[in-house]
């Protein structure tokens, strides 16, 4: 038996209640197998189909929760599309993004000369941020963003307007497909510090159950899908 640490006592109490032993090979085997298998449970069928179906469903689900979506043919078109979005909404021509290679490489100067572009984590004064989505999930119109220098988490929450650039090939059907991609990128059992699953702009129903947007996080969430 291990020394009587708070952890050991805590777990021993669980075992006494469950009337089990921590050494039971059948139990240990069942747990190890489940942790290793990554076996999906029942997955809803609504996202089954080809890429066109997934993208259509993603846009439907996203717009149903007040996410706006633009589509551009190539990455080179992104800066102009963003500048145009900001103009349409009477927003300042200034934004912040992280060190993400795709976002940094965009032809900001050429495509949107009037845009002031800053790099780094969000500052409380920033009104607009741009991040590169790790994936978009069709089943609920959910964006997946991973923390780190490329796309700091503050970009997703501090500014009033959050713009996410999403490559069409990264629109997957289900959450399970995201976990597979995360394991491929970060390793088995490893996770980025923060994974944000974002489905629409911030909202609250805490005053008489009336839904109001922009409670604490962004008031506007805009997605630019890049691809054919």
């Amino acid at each position, binding site marked *: 038996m291990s020394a009587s640490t*708070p952890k050991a006592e805590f777990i021993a109490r669980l075992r006494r209640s469950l009337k089990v032993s921590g050494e039971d090979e059948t139990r240990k085997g069942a747990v190890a197998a489940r942790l290793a298998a990554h076996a999906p449970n029942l997955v809803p069928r609504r996202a089954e189909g080809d890429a066109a179906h997934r993208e259509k469903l993603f846009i439907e689900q996203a717009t149903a929760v007040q996410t706006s979506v633009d589509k551009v043919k190539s990455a080179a078109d992104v800066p102009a599309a963003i500048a145009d979005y900001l103009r349409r909404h009477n927003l300042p021509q200034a934004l912040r993004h992280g060190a993400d290679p795709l976002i940094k490489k965009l032809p900001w100067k050429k495509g949107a000369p009037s845009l002031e572009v800053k790099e*780094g984590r969000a500052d409380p004064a920033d009104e607009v941020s741009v991040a590169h989505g790790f994936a978009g999930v069709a089943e609920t119109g959910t964006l997946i963003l991973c923390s780190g220098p490329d796309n700091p988490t503050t970009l997703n929450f501090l500014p009033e307007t959050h713009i996410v650039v999403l490559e069409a090939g990264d629109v997957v059907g289900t959450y399970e497909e995201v*976990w597979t991609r995360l394991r491929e990128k970060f390793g088995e059992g490893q*996770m980025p510090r923060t994974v944000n699953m974002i*489905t629409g702009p911030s909202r609250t129903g805490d005053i008489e159950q009336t839904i109001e947007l922009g409670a604490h996080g*962004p008031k506007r969430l805009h997605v630019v899908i890049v691809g054919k």
Partner: protein
Amino acid sequence: MDTTSPRFPANVREAFSDQQLQRALSKVPHGFIKKRADARDRLPEFDQLRDQARDIKNHTLAHLDLYLEHYVDKVEAAGGRVHFCTSADEARATIIDLCKGLDASTVTKGKTMIGEEIDINEALEAAGITPVETDLGEYIIQLRHERPSHIIAPAVHVNKDQVEADFRRVHSHLPPDRVLEEASSLVNEARQVLREKYLAADVGITGANFLIAETGTSIIVTNEGNGDLTQTLPKAHIVLATIEKLVPTLEDVSTILRVLARSATGQEFSSYTTLSTGPRRSGDPDGPGEYHVVILDNGRSRMLDTPFQHMLRCIRCGACLNHCPVYQAIGGHAYGWVYPGPMGSVLTPSLIGIDKAGHLPNASTFCGRCEEVCPMRIPLPSMMRHWRERQFERHLTPQTVRWGLGVWGFFARRPPLYRLLTGIGARALKTMAGKRGRLNSVPMAGGWTKHRDLPAPAGKTFMAQWKARGR
């Protein structure tokens, strides 16, 4: 938290006569119930997902010791620390120590019901640390010095004009002639006031909807984004979670997430589902420098391997509250402790004792809607029955009820006598009711007929009719 559950009948009378409360409660059923039903109808697999969600939690609870060990190893490998607390006292002391170690003067908080359970705000204040609730509903009730009256809509008992009055009282630095009538202007004002608090906070405390054993990850599910600002901006993030939040894998949590938001608010998915694993990493430009998980038992391990273990599957969606005719009539405060509604009526006796919470499992019509809508298929009515039986066994049931049950039991064990008496009763009541078919007073049932008429029996008992039809 101190309980007023023992004085439940008095709480109920107060709730009935509270006009503001009744006005607020009248808005509860329509929104939540319809939105959930619509979300269910949009997802053909919904009921199968509920079965699987139930099975996942049953498996996890049966192997809780092993999943917890794996979870702890993964948190530590990611640079986080796990603190094991048996009681509310230990959890409070641990959190205060952590905050003092960080020289904290302000703590922002995401919504946590466990925080209510252990009275963390009072403990922080006593230690000279200012807790700031950031969920809008929690913020409103903090200003009002109240407790949550709903597990996902804590200020559901408060009306808009009351919020306006509270904001004018507390935000006295803002111009008194500002317009605050619309919900949107109230939300905006809270956003501005709380933005300063996030930026100034030293520590952020959140609850957890789930802990994932596979990766050592904690999950919070919110709509406002307040939990994310709370945990991202300060020096340290403290997660407050109880043992039953564990799930094995990312695949398993996906299944439960698919039924959570749909059952709670009728959303396909909440705005923000956030997975956190450890503190800020090298190269990260933001995120908390420290990541602590306070794992609390507080009486839950005693529920394992008992008829009440089902309750540990609860994911706190609030569907049973929204659909409960008793909750709809009295609101959450009358229940007298942290957890109201059907889930509270089952959980509270486990955590504070049936001697104190005995009224709660009796405050049910047994209509069964709670079990019908529970995403985790928790048999709430049958567990309320279990509690009533334990009450009876421990002689906690009032003398008149025990006497009444004794008399009924005497006759029920003597079927010919029972049939004779119920036959006489049925005929007598029918005669008394006359043509109206209803009785507005019945001897020894004045408490019942004071508020409504008793529909008269058909004149013959069910047994007699059954026999007459030759079945």
